[in-house]
């Protein structure tokens, strides 16, 4: 794993990608810090971090687009997969390399609060800024995990970049979309019915076993029906609750306000783990095609 990590990190700085990512990120965060903190005289740096989260939409696809797609295109995946290295180790090495480039970039932006600390009259809220950084790092790491997964789906880095951008944009507008979705119980029933059907289809596509798929469909349908009979209130607003589970930005707001609590940290870490796991499955599945 460490060998892949080291190679990948080197590759970021052998090609323009690492520099483009860092340069663009530092430029934009610098502009925001300058306007808000230095020129505007506002000592709130976590606010700056909160307002530059949109950069992820543009720079994360750049950072992750060639992670796996380039290996497939250049056939170097044959070297990695036929070596005694585990696929999980290889994917983790790549993911951590991308996250490390991001951490290095974040470390550079730490000069803004340090400069501010010389001039801020009442001193800076150091812990609050650190908390803001932790949230920002976790949010970025989650987006990078999505990008990694998208890169495993294609051997073309531009397609990987565009689909990553699309996926991140969807996650971005999720809150806005969920607000206008129906919240009544019938809509919830229909939604859960579709989910049950989707689950059964997924079982069918992965196992190609009719009994397993039909069984899953029956069990899921029974669960939904039982819920409908005994706990009807559960169905009210269920669409919003489910979709909000995917809302990365909503959980970031806590960090932004200077609140550091465990549950969003666990949420982000499991989100990253889920996408890394999906990527591993994707690469393993390729052997069976």
């Amino acid at each position, binding site marked *: 794993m460490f060998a892949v990590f080291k*190679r990948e990190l080197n590759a970021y700085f052998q*090609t323009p990608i690492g520099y483009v990512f860092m340069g663009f990120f530092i430029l934009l965060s610098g502009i925001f810090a300058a306007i808000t903190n230095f020129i505007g005289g506002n000592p709130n740096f976590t606010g700056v971090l909160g307002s530059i989260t949109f950069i992820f939409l543009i720079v994360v696809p750049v950072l992750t687009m060639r992670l796996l797609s380039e290996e497939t295109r250049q056939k*170097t995946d044959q070297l990695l997969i*036929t*070596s005694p290295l585990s696929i999980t180790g290889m994917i983790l090495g790549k993911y951590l390399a991308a996250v490390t480039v991001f951490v290095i970039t974040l470390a550079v932006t730490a000069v803004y609060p340090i400069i501010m600390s010389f001039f801020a009259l009442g001193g800076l809220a150091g812990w609050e800024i650190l908390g803001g950084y932790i949230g920002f790092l976790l949010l970025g790491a989650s987006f990078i995990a999505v990008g990694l997964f998208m890169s495993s789906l294609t051997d073309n880095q531009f397609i990987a970049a565009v689909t990553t951008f699309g996926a991140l944009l969807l996650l971005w507008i999720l809150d806005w979309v969920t607000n206008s979705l129906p919240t009544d119980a019938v809509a919830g029933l229909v939604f859960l019915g579709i989910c049950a059907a989707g689950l059964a289809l997924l079982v069918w596509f992965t196992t190609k076993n009719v009994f397993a798929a039909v069984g899953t469909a029956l069990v899921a349908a029974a669960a939904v029906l039982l819920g409908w009979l005994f706990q009807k209130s559960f169905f009210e607003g269920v669409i919003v609750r489910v979709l909000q589970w995917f809302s990365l930005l909503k959980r970031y707001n806590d960090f932004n306000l200077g609140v550091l609590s465990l549950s969003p940290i666990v949420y982000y870490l499991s989100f990253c783990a889920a996408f890394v796991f999906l990527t591993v499955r994707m690469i393993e599945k390729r052997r069976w095609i």
Partner: protein
Amino acid sequence: MHFSRKENDVIEVDNVTKRYGQRLAVDHLNFTVNKGEILGFLGPNGAGKSTTMNIITGYLSATDGTVRVDGHDILAEPEAVKRNIGYMPELPPLYMDMTVEDYLAFVCEIKKVPRPEQKKDRERAMDLLKITDVRGRMIKNLSKGYKQRVGIAQAVIGTPPVLILDEPTIGLDPQQIIETRNLIRGLGKEHTIILSSHILPEVSAVCDRVLIINKGKIVASDTPENLSRGIVGENRITLRVKGAEADVLAAIRSVPDVTNAQVQGLREAGTVDVLVEARKDRDIREPLFLSLCGASLPILMMKTMDLTLEDIFLNLTTEEKEVQ
């Protein structure tokens, strides 16, 4: 067919099948490779050579059947199998933005060569492939021949007992081809090797045994010598005779054991070149001489023709066979 494991079998391929949708790429393949043997895969493009190699190395999974390397099943113990194999795929898996030395250092690490031995192993591989002079150069700036050699160097890192080389001499110039063949023959002393090719002289020059594969099936398996001697063995002679075409053909066809006589063309004025085929195990040189002599048609040249691997290959892999 089922093979029981023998002491010497390093690679056992048992009933391996690979299906891409409806298409059978590899069709119930069965073979074993003995320790220290150099086995050649021969077949037209798309015959299933690369797919078979990808299955043995664990890059692809077979739809059915098992592969064992040194007694380890590729599905049950992939790591044990992968440690035993050095693989050079059709396209050398090179990172273009690395130097040769950095690249080989990376390969050492992912192949889990013990750290103290890594430098020695790298030097050995570079010496063997004669790439020491380009060690500091970026791989993307190397010529195709050098890239190919870096690809082979990558496979010999860690001295795995089995080497699998997919078209190792493709894209090399004639001088390098000869060097690479010598190299492979040298490697054959300490490694068991499978190499694929669609170039016949290469296989007959290097391999102890040849498998001819077509449409995912083994159509022949033998030593190169036996292959050119045996299978379709026919007796063929080319003649250059002075005289008119019709007279020459008539005289040749009057010899009892001749099955076919074909005019090959006119290379010298007033003569005719004829390819004569005769029944197996009959020497027709003397009757031919006497017959042509009797007709006052002087023989200027007579040459027996061995069946080349090319002929066998075409015979085995082409569907439209001549109707006799």
